[in-house]
């Protein structure tokens, strides 16, 4: 798993941990203490039951059924800690979804039942999730320097000397000076690496075991490479078309609809490959069925800056006029257009939670935005500007300036003045990418590829059902089927991913408009009356007009008749109801004598 746990300290400055990972046995002790306290409270309550009745009631409930049953059991001791173990409040908070509302009043008992039941279900789910959270004890550790030592001066060799062999093996260089500079991509599990050299060299390998899967030269310029949903397929944006290869290097598809692609992003839960082309088109390819979902002309020139928001699957494009635009496949115009830089935008990165966006521009500035509120948080001036940006799962930012890769920690919090780590690559950097679930930063440059060790970069706790770095082939196959079944349709992409769980407030007219737009015609529109052509002077314009009028008149009469009938019906019903009411009441009031 994460190298953070392995980057143990031999030298004083490397891998000093803030706190040891919390283990479940420690947790339980604490819990036990808490429990004891609560128990005491409960005792107190029992001693003074008359003081606060409500509390004692609750206490009884907390005891649960087990406690209640304990009285009647003959054998065995009574449980000193009756009921289920309490769950810490903070943990519960972590798994809270939405807020509880008020219960509807008692008369609406059906609604009340439904609401109570759903609340109970969500409470149960929350509690259980919080309870099982102790299975994820790993925490990320960071480099810490001595008193007057900057962590950015610690070189990779120092780190490698200090850490164990497996962690040390994660720092390596691939010297590929012939076909560089290189772009790279890690697969979703972080196990496989894909390299694409500018001059046509494409290779993929299992970088941890250094096992080469395939290597080839496509004899064309390679603009970008991207893994698809699993390590079995990858896409290569070549000089003219987009190609898809399998991991043996066999060309599966050449997609002629996608031309001049410069950048690609893969949306793993939607199975969409989004491409940005030199002609200004943003295209989406559904890789599960192999169809183009939509092609949007952005009218913003050459698109060579692209990022995607992992939280809501929105594509961010950077433009030469300093703006960053946000796109979904559902709208032809950008959802949001942000003016970020004075000069052109050079690179964009969005963090895992979808909260922050980091941009760098030609004006040598590095800016951090809160993309929920679209407000700038921080602005930094980098002496040489950053050409590539990448954000790790734990929020480390890597920025490449020339041939130097810098890693920053917590750029959106307190303003940083110095990088967390820095490393000089052999050539000018062309692509940087953090490896998921590993403390590794991959750097593609003019002279090949460098894999850097960056403590604290990767998420130490992986979800085995989602992206399991240790999965077998069988597991991968099963995962693939499940993932396909759970595929999210492209229509659901929007700024707010929780929109689906909200009731559509739009009016009937709006919905009708949407329907008309989808169908291309109005299904409820009345057919316009065109008078039949009659001979012998009966189709003179006057006659035709008269006939039209007649028909219109007839229609109007129909409408009026209908409304009158409806009104009568309602009146009648009302009267009947009143009569019934009166009959039910039985008694005659003094005013009844005036009734007919």
């Amino acid at each position, binding site marked *: 798993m994460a190298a953070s746990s392995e980057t143990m300290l031999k030298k004083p400055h490397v891998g000093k941990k803030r706190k040891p990972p919390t283990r479940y046995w420690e947790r339980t002790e604490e819990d036990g203490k808490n429990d004891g306290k609560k128990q005491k409270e409960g005792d107190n309550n029992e001693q003074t039951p008359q003081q606060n009745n409500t509390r004692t009631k609750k206490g009884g409930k907390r005891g649960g059924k087990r406690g209640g049953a304990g009285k009647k059991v003959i*054998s065995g001791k009574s449980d000193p800690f009756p009921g289920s173990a309490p769950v810490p409040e903070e943990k519960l908070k972590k798994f809270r979804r939405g807020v509880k509302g008020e219960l509807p009043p008692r008369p609406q008992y059906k609604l009340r039942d439904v609401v109570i039941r759903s609340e109970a279900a969500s409470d149960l789910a929350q509690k259980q999730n919080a309870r099982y959270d102790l299975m994820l004890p790993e925490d990320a550790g960071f480099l810490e320097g001595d008193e007057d030592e900057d962590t950015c001066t610690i070189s990779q060799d120092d780190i490698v000397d200090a850490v164990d062999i497996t962690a040390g093996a994660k720092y390596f260089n691939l010297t590929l000076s012939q076909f560089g500079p290189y772009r790279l991509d890690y697969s979703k599990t972080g196990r496989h690496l894909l390299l694409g050299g500018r001059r046509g060299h494409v290779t993929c390998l299992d970088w941890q075991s250094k096992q080469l899967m395939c290597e080839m030269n496509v004899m064309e310029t390679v603009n970008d490479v991207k893994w698809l949903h699993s390590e079995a397929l990858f896409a290569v944006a070549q000089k003219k078309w987009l190609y898809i290869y399998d991991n043996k290097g066999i060309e599966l598809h050449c997609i002629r609809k996608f031309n001049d692609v410069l950048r690609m992003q893969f949306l793993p839960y939607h199975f969409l490959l989004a491409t940005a082309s030199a002609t200004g088109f943003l295209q989406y390819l559904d890789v599960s069925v192999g169809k183009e979902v939509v092609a949007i002309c952005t009218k913003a020139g050459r698109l060579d800056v692209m990022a995607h928001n992992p939280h809501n699957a929105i594509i961010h494009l950077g433009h030469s006029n300093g703006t960053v635009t946000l796109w979904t496949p559902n709208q032809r115009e950008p959802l949001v257009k942000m003016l*970020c830089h004075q000069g052109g935008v050079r690179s964009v990165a969005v963090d895992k939670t979808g909260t922050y966006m980091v941009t760098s521009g030609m004006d040598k500035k590095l800016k951090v935005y809160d993309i929920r509120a679209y407000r700038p948080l921080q602005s930094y001036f980098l002496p040489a500007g950053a050409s590539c940006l990448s954000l790790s799962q734990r929020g480390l930012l890597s920025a490449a300036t020339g041939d130097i890769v810098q890693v920053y920690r917590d750029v959106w919090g307190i303003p940083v003045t110095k990088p967390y780590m820095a490393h000089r690559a052999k050539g000018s950097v062309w692509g940087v990418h953090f490896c998921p679930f590993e403390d590794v930063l991959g750097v593609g440059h003019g002279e090949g590829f460098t894999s850097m060790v960056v403590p604290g970069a990767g998420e130490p706790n992986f979800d085995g059902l989602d992206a399991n770095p240790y999965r077998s082939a069988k597991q991968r196959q099963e995962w693939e089927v499940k993932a396909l079944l759970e595929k999210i349709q492209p229509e659901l992409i929007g700024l707010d991913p929780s929109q689906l769980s909200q009731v559509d407030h739009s009016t009937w007219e709006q919905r009708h408009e*949407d329907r008309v737009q989808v169908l291309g015609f109005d299904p409820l529109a009345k057919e316009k009356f065109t008078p039949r052509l009659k001979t012998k002077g009966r189709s003179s314009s006057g006659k035709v007009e008269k006939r039209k009028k007649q028909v219109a008149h007839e229609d109007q009469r129909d409408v009026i008749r209908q409304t009158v009938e409806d009104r009568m019906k309602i009146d009648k019903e009302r009267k009947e109801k009143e009569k019934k009411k009166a009959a039910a009441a039985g008694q005659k009031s003094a005013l009844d004598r005036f009734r007919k």
Partner: protein
Amino acid sequence: MCLNNKLSEGDKINLSDLIGTLDKTPSALIKTKKQLKNLQHNQSTLETPLTRKETEKIQREVAFEKTSKEVSRWQSVVLQNQKAEQLVFPLNQEPSGPKRIEHVVAGWKAQTPLEQEIFSLLRMNKQPLHDPVLTPTEEASLRAMSLEEAKIRRAELQKTRVLQSYYEAKAKRGKKIKSKKYHRVQKKVMRKEYLKQFDEMVKTDPAAALEELKKMELSRMKERMSLKHQNSGKWAKSKAIMAKYDDGARKAMQKQLEVNKDLTQKLVIPADEDEEDEEESAETLPDFVNDVEPILDQVNPWMRGKLSTEPMMEESNRLDPPVWPREVGKPGEGQDEQEEDEEQMEETEEESLLRGFEERRKLRQTEDKAEILEISDYDEEAVEISDDDEEAGLSNFTSLFHGLVNHMEPPADQPKAGPGLRQGESPALLEEGLVRVRTLEDVELLSQDISTSDTALLTTQILGTEETDTQSATQQADKKRKKMIDPNEVLTKEAKVIEMPLAPTAVEDVEDKEEQRVIIKEAFAGDDVVSDFLKDKRKQEEAGRPKVIDLTLPGWGEWGGLGLQPSRSKRKRFRVKVAPPPPRQDQKLPNIIIAEKRDSSIAAHQVCQLPFPFEKPIQFERTIRSPVGRTWNTQNAVQKITAPKVVTQLGAIIEPIAREDLIKDNRQAVTGPSINLESDQGPQKKRRSQQKKQHKRKKN
């Protein structure tokens, strides 16, 4: 009869005997007589029987009542079953799985000598054997509470509840009172009481007092964070306006600021300012987007406004010497004093309020005039409607930007277009130069890099310089503008320089950084990114605004023809004004354009009609707020949440509910077990075992 028989045993009975008895009891005779008379009087015949229809009707009614009564006995059971989360058919089955010892033991007797011995031992120790599981002492303790006691206890509880509700009602009423004075007095009383208590506590329980002190400190910190004592509140603003004329108001403001200062004292950190972009700023327009406002306190962005107040005050001292020095030198005045002062000043406050009203009225009048002018303009040149719109639609941002440009120039006495205005702008933009967004003082302040968030103080100075009412009105307008400017200041962030431990090797020639900077600046001098963006934004705003519909028909009711315009009144009458759209999402974000178009694609997947029991969307949304799937929940939770409504045992005969079940009135037995969502521990043993059984059967 019996009596007679007894009598007859002795001797013969004569008629006289019988009659004699009658004589002895005259009342009975009278009764019978009466009855006979009545019969004679009642000459009427028996009623004819009802018709068949009628009798049938009555019979039906009776039968209906009877059966409905019968059926309604099932009502509760049916309802129960409808409500039940899960029904396991066949109902009433014995729970499978291990049974409790008590149940097993109940029908069992000790037979072997060993067993008998054990049981005798148990008996000796007064241990319960079976059904009554409790020991005698326990039972006694259970019995200890009598019915009367329980009743008394209940009464007590009722009383407490009622008292509680009274108290709540009272508190609610008190909360609703809007009188400020009332609350002020209330607060004062509370504070005094609290202090008294605290003093006592210091004597009696120093540890608790220390705790209290900590709490007070915490509340102080909270207050400090709340920015409550800055001059951005409603009260403070009103005071700021009146500060020029009113000593009391000035004093109050001063005190407020003092409080603020006191509260913020701790956090003042000497901020190092490395302004690297000095020479870049104040030359060309594009640069202000990035560097206008430095962050004085880089650690805490919230502190910016506060820290700036100090220099601001100095500034004001310098500018307005006769007014300010008097109040500045009054340190060490607590919060309590301030409140007392406030009470004293109420009179002056009233005056100030009155004045404020007057000013506002005047402002409104001037605005009305302006509107009238505009309307007349509109009528004169119907063709130029679009142009007018453009003028009106000059968004706040443009005015802001141009204002920023203008303030670089000497104050525009002559309405001359500043050089900052670009050629591409319409003439309407040029006219905008008349509106002065910032005064000289502001420019000075700006040059000293002070944030303009303290508009209140600024306006006091501005008001000081001006005499006439109209001018003050324009100033008010200015203030409005400034309010809209504020978000901009958020946008302009000072870039922080990052030190690089390693200098990048020159791939391109980066020897002379300055030179390169100049080159870049030159390269981007031409394409004005900001103005392009603003134009784009304005265009979008225009597109979103509904158009005024003109329904005037020339020639109706008057002469029409070439060169003839319909009359003004008519045009006015037939112009349909459309309600303005809701404010745009990006109204306050100058560097953002948010598309207002509805995304209808997701609407197809959303719920558009609430399902049955729900009445408000929020209720429904809350019930679907947490996911159900296995990706987000534990296995156990998923099983419980998605349990089926009806479970039938395979191959079991499901019989209708029998009458016996009803008589038993054991609802649990009828409805069967319910899913336990309360406890989150332990798997559902029952259901699992059932499922296992089902599996077995399937296999068989």
